[in-house]
């Protein structure tokens, strides 16, 4: 199964949904993400067969230690592409195309290592381009600010990264949200511009306040850098992931959040300054 995970590094990640995967027996996954702790955790837990990525990072902690361990042990297959190629692959999937052409990757190692093919422009320029294959997703997982029961989303904050294109590239899109309302038009009609993709793409919604923790969810809360540091340091502990998972996944969301001061503590995390 190929899963796309929205957000970017340690920002706007559907971490509660990722934790739920980690509590399940779902495995042998192909994961496509602008990676942060979502990718690190799934790699550490041995759930990833293949990763499609341009980076995996926790921003202030540049190198994601659990992802590094998995890579340096040769445990996962990868397709490493440029950040722009990645969204291009999502767009190809969204438009139901086999690929989209790009100059990006020319002159680097990524085409050869990723088995990417070249195409020649049929027009007079005859330019050689890389054919970025569609990144088709069986499902996309996103965490948004607001949603109603019909799947009408509202994304707030300064940047939605490529969440829209994860939704469009997927056969099914599952959304967790900070706040679930009955009819969004009755509550927040003034924010309809935050509806960056349509409810026809959304198959399931669930309300999980704090569901992006420890990643940031502006404007609701910032990332939990102390939790991310503890998570990163845990990669050096002899107990390995099994021991770390007790704290960073936990048996359910309520116990998980309680371990970090509860929902109130998460809601008061300051937004990061860049």
């Amino acid at each position, binding site marked *: 199964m190929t899963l796309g995970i929205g957000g970017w590094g340690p920002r706007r990640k559907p971490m509660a949904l990722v934790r739920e995967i980690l509590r399940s027996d779902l495995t042998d996954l192909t994961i496509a993400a602008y990676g942060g702790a979502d990718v690190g955790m799934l790699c550490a837990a041995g759930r990833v067969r293949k990763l499609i990525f341009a980076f995996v990072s926790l921003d202030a902690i540049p190198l994601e230690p659990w992802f590094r361990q998995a890579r340096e042990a040769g445990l996962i297959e990868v397709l490493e592409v*440029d950040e*722009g190629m990645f969204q291009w692959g999502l767009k190809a999937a969204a438009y139901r195309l086999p690929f989209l052409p790009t100059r990006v990757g020319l*002159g680097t190692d990524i085409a050869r290592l990723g088995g990417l093919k070249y195409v020649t422009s049929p027009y007079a320029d005859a330019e050689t381009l890389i054919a970025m294959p569609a990144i088709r997703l069986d499902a996309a997982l996103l965490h948004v600010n607001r949603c109603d029961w019909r799947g009408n989303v509202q994304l707030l904050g*300064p*940047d939605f990264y490529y969440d829209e294109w994860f939704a469009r590239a997927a056969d099914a899109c599952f959304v967790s949200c900070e706040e679930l309302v009955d009819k969004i038009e009755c509550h927040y009609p003034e924010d309809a511009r935050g509806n960056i993709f349509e409810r026809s793409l959304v198959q399931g919604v669930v309300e999980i306040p704090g569901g992006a923790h420890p990643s940031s969810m502006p404007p609701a809360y910032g990332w939990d850098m102390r939790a991310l540091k503890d998570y990163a340091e845990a990669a050096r502990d002899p107990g390995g992931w099994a021991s770390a998972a007790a704290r960073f996944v936990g048996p359910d969301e309520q116990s998980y959040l309680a371990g970090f001061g509860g929902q109130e503590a998460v809601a008061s995390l300051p937004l990061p300054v*860049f």
Partner: protein
Amino acid sequence: MRQVSLAELCIFACSELFRTDREIVASGIGPIPRIAAGLAKLTHSPGLLMTDGEAFLVEEPTPIGPRGDYRIQASGHLPFSRFFDAAVWSGRRHAMVTPTQIDRFGQTNLSALGGTHARPKVQMLGVRGFPGNSVYHPNSMFIPQHSPRVFVAGEVDFVSSAGYNPDRRIPGGNFSGVSLLGIVTDLCVMDFGGADHAIRIASLHPGVSCDQVRQSTGFPLEADDPPVTPFPDPHTLSLIDRLDPHNLRSTVFKGNPMARGTGT
């Protein structure tokens, strides 16, 4: 007269690399490149666009570090979700970055060291946006520790960004966007003005010799009696203070050394 630190000398040199009369996005990644981009905008290159470090365009470069009462005044919006359309793939950007390895062709590596792609010895960030940056818009680099481990002999372990290597010019590919402007290090400023874009010492920081730079570089360097890297004047230093009110630049080099020499 206030002494000029090596960090401030590098900021000034990096700001010169950002010099342009175009309206393009300046992305300085890391404290010194970011302060330098702001300095360029405040001095010789007012047309530069830049963000607050996140998603909003600002005309007043945002000071780095904790903001206190400072509030950004957004003049526009440039989120990551528009970045490839607006800045990268249209060629309207100059990024200054710090890769882990650089080779004689200006190819860089941010992805992995040693081993194989299936099992690298050291996994780093991944290629990030380097492949696209390198074929679409001008780029430059800041390297805080000039050494043969960064400036490697042979090719970089993983070519994350395209450079001027003729063996990697795919026939029919359009490489006209490849534009490497320069490299600022703790020892010198280099450019790509040698034969076939070979890397050249453009200026030496005070007290540094060409021999010292060559001993710290894994490949041959051209040099034609390079001058001393220019010092920032007191007005420039005051602008640097404004852009870096918490003096984060003092943490870039161990011990925050002064630039040797008298300055201006």
